[in-house]
Each structure stands twice: as C-alpha cells, then as structure tokens.
C-alpha cells in the first residue's frame, strides 16, 4: 500500500515537462528536496574550491614559482577557505540533517518547511555573491577581484586603509547571508527534534545522528551571532566611519580575533559533529552491532558542545595573552580531547566482536577513525600552548586541520553519500568505482597532508605564496602537490560514479544495507510525505525489532 502511493507520486513528476520539474524544485518546501539541493550545491562549490586548492598546490610545488601572482594566490587562499567552510561544509552537513532528521524520527517534514526553503535560498544567493566578487569585487566597471584578506580576515587588514575596493564587502555580505540561512536551519532542527518525534520515540530513543544534529543546531545558534555581529561592525567601520577594528583610530585588532574565534572554534565542532553523527550510524550497520554505549556517546556529544564554547583563544596563543589566560585555554583545549576520545573508544567498542563488512561507506568510516585519531592527537600538541607558539600559523596547523576537515569530515561525507545515496535516488553507487575513489583519495590525502606536518616543523608559515630554496622545504612541498592532484583524480572518479549510477546503478530497494533506523522502512526514494502511516517505535533500532522479533532491542534499553 505504502509503496503504491509512492510510485504514483514519482510517476506524476516524471510526466511533467522539464521546466515544470525544475519549477517544482524551485518552489519546493520538502525537506528532502531542500536537503538534496544543499548537498548538490555544496558539492558544486567543493569542486570549485578544490580546484582552487590544487592551483595553490601547483604554485607551491616548487620554490620561487611564478604560476600565480602573490595577490592571485591570496585570493585563492581566501576563497578556498571561506568556500570550504561556508559554501561546502555547512550546506552539505545541514543538507544531510535536513534530509535525515525527519526520516529518522518518523516525521513528515521539518517543523517549519517554508523557513527551511527561505534558509536554502539565502544560502545559495549568499554563496553566489562570494564568487560574484571575481567579477564585481572592485565595483561594476569590469575590474573584478575576489577578497584577499584570508578566511579569518584579521583586522585591520580588512579596514578601508588596507582593503580598497569592494571585494571585502562581498566577503562580509556573503557570510552574513549564509549565516542567517544556517541559523534558520538550526531553529528548524531544534523545533523538529523537540516536537515532531513519532510515537514512542523518547529523547533517549532518538538515533545518535539526531542527537548530534540537535547539539550542532544549538552550537550554531550560539556561535553564529558573534560572527554576524562582527561582520556588521566591520561594515560599519568600512562605510559609516566606526572604529571598532580601525587601529589607526584607536580600534582593537584583537577584538576581531575574539569575535571571530568565538564563532570559529565552535564552527569546527559544528562541522565535525555531523561527521561523528554519520560514523555513529554507519559503523554499527557495517559491524552488524548496536552502537556501544549509547548514553555515553550522547553525553560525550553534549560535553563536546559545551566545552567547545570555551576554547576559542587557543587560536590566539601568540597574541600576547597573560600566562594565566594561556594556561586556561590550554587546559580547556586539552579537556575537549576527553569526550572526543570517548567517542573513538565507543566506535572501537562497536567494531569489537562484530562481523565487519567492508563496503565503501565502511571503508571511508575506517579511514575516518584512523585519521581523526591522528588529528585529535596533533590537536593536543597544538593545545600545549608553548608548543603552539612554534606551531601556530605554520603548515603544521594546515596539516592538522585538513586532517580534521578532509581526513575526518570529507571522508565521512563520502561515507554518508555512499550510504544514503540509495535512499535518496533508489539506486546504489557503483562499488568498484567507489573502491577506486576510496583508495586513491586515501593515498592522495596522505601524500599531501603527512609531509605538511614536517614542513611546519621546518619553519614554513601558512598563507605564503612562495618559499625560498635551500631551507629544506622543496621535497615536502613537491610530495604534497602530487598528492593534491591524486586527490583531484579520486574526486573525478567519484563524480563519474555519481553520474553513472544515477542512470545505471543497481536498484536499491528500501533497505539495501540491512539497516535498523526508520529511514530504511520507507521506499527509496521516500514519498513526499515520508511515511504513509506514522510509525511507532519501541527502541532505538525499530527495524531490528521488526527483523528479530525473538530478540528485540527494547528488552535491553
């Protein structure tokens, strides 16, 4: 019955002409379509910002290289950083939450569907505004240029005296708009998880992913306003003669840094907690075991959320804080390692005693586990404030946070795409291309980012457009650049896989992975209303209960 209704809905759409179908995507308020548009948009900017990174690596492949001019390099660096955070990480992860949260809690949509649509379009136009600066950054007389102040945009480099033209204004407005979009999503997720869970789903029965979505939403609500406030202050400085950050008129450069990192560090967790969320769904299914220590997992997530609000100044150990200030932020930074460690141990506990199936989502998840562990440990090194006086603003930091952002988050995004692609499209991604994608990406990733740790220890600062020969940096940089191209090849294979599988992939059916959460109980792709009848659950793994009536979960929870 459920399936029949779903099929007619899909047929209706296919009958529409192309313009009509596109129109449906534009006017949609369906959380699944908006989620997919977020993910698709994010992947589009992932390719652009990734190619910008490859260009930077080619420039840095050799000392004294002249592939791009210094200012062009600085624009690439700024756009790569800004885009990867606001135009790639945020939309892909909010896209997944948009898509999955209602399905996993047995709801028919998010609490405020039209707010959701509003947030998406704000995000999209904010994102386009950022790249429009390449055309209109110096005003509309044809001379374009993107912002070149770095994604952190330290004052007073962003003030009118040092950043003429309009490129910095595009950066400010783009981030303001995308942040408002993200805030809308955050409100929606909080409201949805609190008020739209299906019958029987107490807070303690929500899948770990939904718990993490809730923590991320709260973090967004707390972390984004300081950023937006700082952007507004910067606009006031630039246009109305305010002097918040204008040091030439007595403003404070450090004030900007505090505002930026009060947002910036929770932002790291806003990006990485969704990766934890995917891992907490995927690893159990492919280990064939229930998540180990659900309550501790949830508690650790909340702890990370709280502690991450008190660590921001570890980005500022070199600005000349007092010893007490440095010691406080060193301590809070290392403390956040404890709940993070607990999570890794719990995933290990989930794997332990399981029957591991090495399908592509699991391969990416295992890569994530190793790499995230290394990233966490290099993070501890950076938290040791005196060591950080040497490491901060060097390639060691670049290597560390790419271990988090690529080795952790991007790996889990790929895992999530391989895992939920069948749900969203009804077709499986090709396993063989997927394995190629995984192994090449893994090798390319390590070729690039392992040597960069050593480049940093060898005295190579970040954000430099070139380096001089004879300082021991040549070999490390060449390796890193080769790795960047290998990663690009891997992403190309992924793109081929997506396009190929959309048309020719194996039919998935509703539950291709033999999984346990509610989204796998409806058709693939799910109908617009998700569930014909509101589901009723008794445990955290409702489909396990269905499949194993002799040994249901609710006996143990």
């Amino acid at each position: 019955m459920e399936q029949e209704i779903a099929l007619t809905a899909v047929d209706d759409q296919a009958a529409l002409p192309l313009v009509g179908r596109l129109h449906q995507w534009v006017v949609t308020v369906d959380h699944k379509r908006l989620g997919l548009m977020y993910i698709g948009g994010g992947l589009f900017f992932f390719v652009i910002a990734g190619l910008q990174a490859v260009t930077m690596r080619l420039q840095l492949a050799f000392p004294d290289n002249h592939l791009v001019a210094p200012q062009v390099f600085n624009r690439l660096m700024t756009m790569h950083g800004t885009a990867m955070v606001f135009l790639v990480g945020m939309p892909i992860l909010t896209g997944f939450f948009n898509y999955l949260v209602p399905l996993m809690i047995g709801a028919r949509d998010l609490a405020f569907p039209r707010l959701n649509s509003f947030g998406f379009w704000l995000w999209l136009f904010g994102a386009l505004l950022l790249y429009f600066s390449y055309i209109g950054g110096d005003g509309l007389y044809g001379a374009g240029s993107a912002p070149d102040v770095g994604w952190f945009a330290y004052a007073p480099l962003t003030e009118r005296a040092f950043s003429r033209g309009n490129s910095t204004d595009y950066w400010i407005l783009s981030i303001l708009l995308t942040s408002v979009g993200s805030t809308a999503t955050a409100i929606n997720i909080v409201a949805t998880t609190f008020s739209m869970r299906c019958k029987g789903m107490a807070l303690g029965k929500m899948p770990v992913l939904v718990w993490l979505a809730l923590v991320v939403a709260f973090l967004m609500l707390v972390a984004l306003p300081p950023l937006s406030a700082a952007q507004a202050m910067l606009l006031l400085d630039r246009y109305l003669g305010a002097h918040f950050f204008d040091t030439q008129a007595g403003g404070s450069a450090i004030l900007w840094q505090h505002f930026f990192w009060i947002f910036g560090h929770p932002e790291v967790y806003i990006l990485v907690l969704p990766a934890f969320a995917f891992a907490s769904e995927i690893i159990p299914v492919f280990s064939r075991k229930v998540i180990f220590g659900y309550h501790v997992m949830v508690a650790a997530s909340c702890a990370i959320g709280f502690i991450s609000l008190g660590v921001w100044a570890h980005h500022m150990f070199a600005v000349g804080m007092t010893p007490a200030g440095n010691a406080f932020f060193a301590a809070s930074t290392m403390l956040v390692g404890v709940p993070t460690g607990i999570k890794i141990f719990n995933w290990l506990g989930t794997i332990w005693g399981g029957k591991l199936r090495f399908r592509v989502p699991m391969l990416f998840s295992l890569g994530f586990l190793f790499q995230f562990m290394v990233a966490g440990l290099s993070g501890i090194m950076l938290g040791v404030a005196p060591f950080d006086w040497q490491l901060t603003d060097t390639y060691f930091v670049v290597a560390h946070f790419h271990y988090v952002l690529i080795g952790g988050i991007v790996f889990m995004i790929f895992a999530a795409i391989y895992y939920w692609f069948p749900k969203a499209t009804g077709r499986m991604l090709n396993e063989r291309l997927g394995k190629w994608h995984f192994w090449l990406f893994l090798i390319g990733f390590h070729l690039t980012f392992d040597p960069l740790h050593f480049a940093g220890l060898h005295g190579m600062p970040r954000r430099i457009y070139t380096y001089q020969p004879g300082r021991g940096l040549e070999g490390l940089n060449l390796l890193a650049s080769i790795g960047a191209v290998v990663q690009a090849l891997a992403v190309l294979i992924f793109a081929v896989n997506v396009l190929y599988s959309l048309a020719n992939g194996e039919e998935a059916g509703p539950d291709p992975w033999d999984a346990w959460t509610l989204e796998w109980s409806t058709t693939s792709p799910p109908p617009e209303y998700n569930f014909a009848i509101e589901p009723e659950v008794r445990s955290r793994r409702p489909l396990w209960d269905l499949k194993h009536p002799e040994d249901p979960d609710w006996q143990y929870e």
Partner: protein
Amino acid sequence: MLATQLIPRWPEKPLYLVKRCILLGAALVIGAAPTAASDWGVGAANSHLTHPQVFAPVSTPARDIETLAWFTIAVCAGIALIVGGLLAYSIVRFRARPDDDGREPPQVYGSNPIEFAWTVVPLLIVFVLILTTARTIYTVQAAPRPPTALSVRVIGHQWWWEIRYPDLDIVTANEMHVPVSDPAHPAPTFLELESADVAHSFWVPQLAGKTDLIPNRKNVMWIDPHTPGTYLGQCAEFCGTEHGLMLLRVIVQPRAQWEDWVASQRRPAARDGAAGHGREIFESTACVNCHTVRGTVADGRFGPDLTHIMSRDTLGAGAAMNTPDNLKTWIKDPNLIKPGVLMPAMNLNDAELADVAQYLETLR
C-alpha cells in the same frame, strides 16, 4: 556499462594502477615547474645556513619548548600506537569471513566499567599535560628581565621589519644583530614588538616561539642565543600581498664582534665624494620621502633606514641577496623581485640608476 568496463576490476591489479595514478599526478605537477625562475641568490646563500627548524633550538625559550614538545609527542605517539593498534587488530580480527553463517553477532549495548575506565585514563593524561604545559608557559612568559638585558624594538610594516635599539641609537631593518648569551653570564635580548599597520608575527624557530606584532599594542618576548650564527625567520601572520616574502634574519655574534657592529652602525652615513652625483639624484627624487639616511635631507620613515644599507645581507626583507646587480634591479623596479611591494619603480634612466646604486654602495 561503459564506465565499469573502462575501470579495471578491483582488486586484481590495484597496486600497479594506483602507482600509475600517482605517477600521472606527479607528471601533472612537474608540468607546472617554473621556467628558470631566479631566486636572486637566496638559495645558494641559504645553503650555508642551518634550516630554521623547531627541533634545532639555540636559545632558552626554544629549548624549553622543545623539551615540552618531545614530551607531548611521546605521550601522543603512545596513545596513537595503542589506539591505532587496537583499531587495526579489531578490523582484521572481526572482519566478516567468507564462510559466515549470516547470523548477527552478539549485540553488546555497553559496559559501565569499561566506559568509566576510558574516561578516567584520558582525564589523568590530560591532567599531567596541563600541569607540564602551565609550568613551561610560566618559565618562558614570566621570566624576569635582568637589568643587563639588551632592548630591541621591532616594528612590523607591510612587508619589512623596522629594528631599533633605543639605548644605542641604532635603526636598521630586517636583520637583527644580537650578542651571544653565555649561559654562565646570561645576556638576553628583550624584544618589544609593535606594528605600524596590520598584524604581523615575529618568528625565528631556533630562537623562540612566535609572538604577534599588533597595532595599538606592545608585546614582549625574549631570546638568549647560545651559539653564534645567522638564524632565519619570517613573518608568520598573514599581513597582505607580500606576506610570503617578509623574511627576517637574526645574526648572533660574539660580544666583541657585536660591539664592533654597534660602533659601525652608530657612525653617521658615509660621504664619499666620488658618489656625489648619485647622492644628488637620491636626495632630489621621491627616495627621501620614505627612506632615511642619517645626516642628510633624507628623513622618510615609511621605508627602511638606508644609513648603513650595505652592512645588510639582503634586500627587500630577504627577497634578494644584497649584490650590486640585485640592488640596481631593485631600484629600477622592485616589483621584479617582490611583486606587490609598496616601493614604486623609480623610473630612472640607466646613467642615473648606475649613479644612485653607486651612492648606495658607499653607505656601509
């Protein structure tokens, strides 16, 4: 179907093909290799110096940091070995076998004692790390300043370093000379860090960690180099277009040699009659708006002090070695050496250029 036919089967020959992909990547990168780019003599000069490494300290703060760094690395490596080893073991040990019976493994929902243990053990490790960290923070940051310490003011500019010795009446740029500090008779140098425009960061890895130079703020750091030599460093906070070539060197000299250097820097600018014409040109063009040559009409403050420019190893904050040819190129158009630099091309004709260069070469 086509795509799957093109892609070789997994995993018959994976290594061979992975190798191919890496070679292809390498070929693409090397295709972007520069065509005979000049490094203005810097590469050859650098090869005589030690690499600016974090793990080759010659000064107390850098040494304290190194000790703490090795301790931290040892702890982290231990954790990585144990956790990584357990992960690798469990991945191999618990893989699904081909002869699997298809039954689900036993479902384990958690274990309070185990979870308690792996919460408490990390807490203890973190506690130890916090204590050792705090100790080093205080020994480095709160070190008392002996009355004999040398004071140096370092002022960051886009994209060069102004270096002033307030007690000695010396102004120079980009290359700081300090006396060696014998551990038996410590003679540390205390740096006051300021900025004239945007944020910069002072970093010479072998001497100390970095400290930012922030406008409207005075930061302090100290060094006490034990070994004479030239130590490379550079700006470590993004400061605009030429952040990449805002280089720095600290020249550590035995006391007597350093005192000779001080004496020579305190002398007024040389006046060599043979270079009089070049001097006239220098003093009648825009040069004097930005540069100072003490004792002449040139008293600009925007660019580096040139009173003893020939006593310095490099030009353009380390962008080029200070050779006569490089000097001429620099005056003619500094953008050729350091694109985006704030000094404009001086548009001198060849004769004027030669004269000005000749004059500058007398400023020893």
